């Protein structure tokens, strides 16, 4: 069962005081939420804090708000809680446990963009129930609707979000246009991850709030953990906590940040530092290999997962993810030839920025990270394979899946909406 832990020195602003219980409107009000604040003041705080999106891409939140506002027409706001990354549980936990923090953030995004309506985009049943109750407990001044996509890897990609809300399937479309230019019903649309919105609500309540991240830490043989940590915490601090200082590799950022070289464990969980070592924070999911596990087997499993989650719209993604997955599997099985490594090297570069969404980029980056950080190990697989891989060669794409921590709900009935 997934546990909850804080690495903050003081209070944990995102986890709150009672992370195992669903926070009601009244709890949230008592914690300082829902207070009036001018959207211009808040916008300046968001900008000064340098807040970046917590869904995966890490785009500066203030720039996104400004782009939507600058277009001239009336915008739409979407709270994105799709959480398609299998190793991430933090968004579902946030909506299940702290729905009012998310709702407050969304309504403040509506204020800052002067949007006419908003959507909550949620795949998980329990999270959708929790958000729906929150909407009943605090009715927004603009129309707010919950939209329920299937739980797939690509459903949370921002063009897939827009397409689903517009009545289509939750599948990505080619860019441009991006949603901030033309999104829901053609209106400029702010699609913001629910943790990003929660952070906006925290900034509204406390201008000096410490900058923190929600992380989902997992690995075979580990009890998964939802962790709140200060921005800049090292990967090593998480490894220490998980008793995996001897880890042979760390899958970073969900499936998006590739496998981190264990010699890079001191890297800070912060976008620029991770970018400098070819990794990424992504959605904050961190998966530690155990001693005795092989990074090549992990990459092969990750590529199988991605190939299976391709929405099969782009020919290059269907062919590219399949080829990457098959070839990495043959390296793991010890049946690859030197030309296979050359092909992996070529594809890991040439398949970037080719698909309508980032899934193929994640696959290319995963392959590239293995070749870059584990070159001698990969070469060694050519001579009769790898004992660690062969000991562990039931392909297991489900190894990444993490369920959110259990959240208790108060038993007394919900009071009538105010």
């Amino acid at each position, binding site marked *: 069962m997934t546990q909850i832990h804080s690495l903050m020195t003081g209070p944990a602003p995102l986890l709150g005081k009672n992370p195992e219980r669903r926070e009601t409107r009244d709890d949230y009000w008592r914690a300082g939420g829902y207070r009036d604040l001018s959207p211009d003041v808040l916008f300046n705080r968001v900008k000064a804090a340098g807040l970046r999106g917590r869904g995966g891409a890490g785009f500066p939140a203030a720039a996104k708000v400004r782009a939507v506002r600058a277009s001239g027409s009336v915008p739409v706001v979407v709270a994105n809680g799709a959480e398609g990354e299998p190793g991430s549980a933090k968004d579902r936990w946030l909506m299940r446990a702290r729905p009012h923090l998310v709702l407050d953030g969304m309504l403040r995004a509506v204020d800052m963009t002067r949007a006419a309506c908003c959507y909550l985009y949620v795949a998980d049943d329990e999270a959708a129930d929790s958000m729906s109750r929150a909407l009943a407990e605090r009715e927004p001044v603009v129309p707010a609707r919950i939209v329920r996509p299937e739980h797939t890897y690509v459903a949370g990609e921002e063009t897939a979000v827009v397409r689903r809300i517009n009545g289509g399937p939750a599948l990505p479309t*080619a860019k441009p246009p991006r949603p901030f230019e033309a999104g829901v019903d053609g209106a400029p649309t702010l699609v913001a991850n629910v943790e990003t919105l929660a952070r906006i609500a925290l900034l509204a309540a406390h201008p000096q709030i410490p900058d923190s991240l929600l992380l989902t830490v997992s690995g075979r043989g580990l009890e998964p953990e939802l962790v709140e940590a200060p921005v800049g915490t090292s990967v090593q601090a998480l490894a220490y906590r998980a008793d995996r200082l001897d880890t042979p590799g760390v899958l970073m950022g969900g499936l998006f940040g590739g496998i981190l070289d264990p010699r890079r464990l001191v890297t800070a969980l912060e976008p620029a530092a991770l970018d400098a070592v070819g990794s990424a924070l992504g959605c904050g999911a961190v998966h530690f290999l155990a001693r005795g596990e092989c990074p090549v087997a992990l990459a092969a499993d990750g590529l199988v997962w991605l190939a299976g989650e391709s929405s099969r719209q782009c*020919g*290059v993604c269907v*062919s590219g993810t399949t*080829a990457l997955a098959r070839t990495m599997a043959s390296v793991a099985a010890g049946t690859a030839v030197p030309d296979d490594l050359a092909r992996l090297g*070529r*594809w890991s570069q*040439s398949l970037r920025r080719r698909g*309508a969404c980032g899934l193929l980029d994640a696959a290319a980056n995963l392959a590239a990270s293995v070749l870059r950080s584990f070159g001698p190990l990969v070469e060694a697989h050519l001579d009769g394979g790898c004992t660690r891989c062969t000991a562990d060669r039931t392909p297991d794409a489900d190894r990444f899946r993490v369920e959110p921590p259990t959240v208790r709900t108060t038993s007394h009935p919900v009071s009538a909406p105010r």
Partner: protein
Amino acid sequence: MKLLLDATLCQGYGVCQEKAPAQIELDDFGYAAVLATEVPADGEAAAAAAVAACPNRALRLEPQR
């Protein structure tokens, strides 16, 4: 001008690459890859020919914004 490819539409016919070899290459799987989105002035005619040649209308030219 910008040369844009909708990867969901590309079926790998490959005719675009014949029309604009300086701007488009075909990958190992036969799908088109735009080498540089920005089209130089002396490449616009070739890019336009590639756009027109695609049986699936996967390519388009857009003015710079």
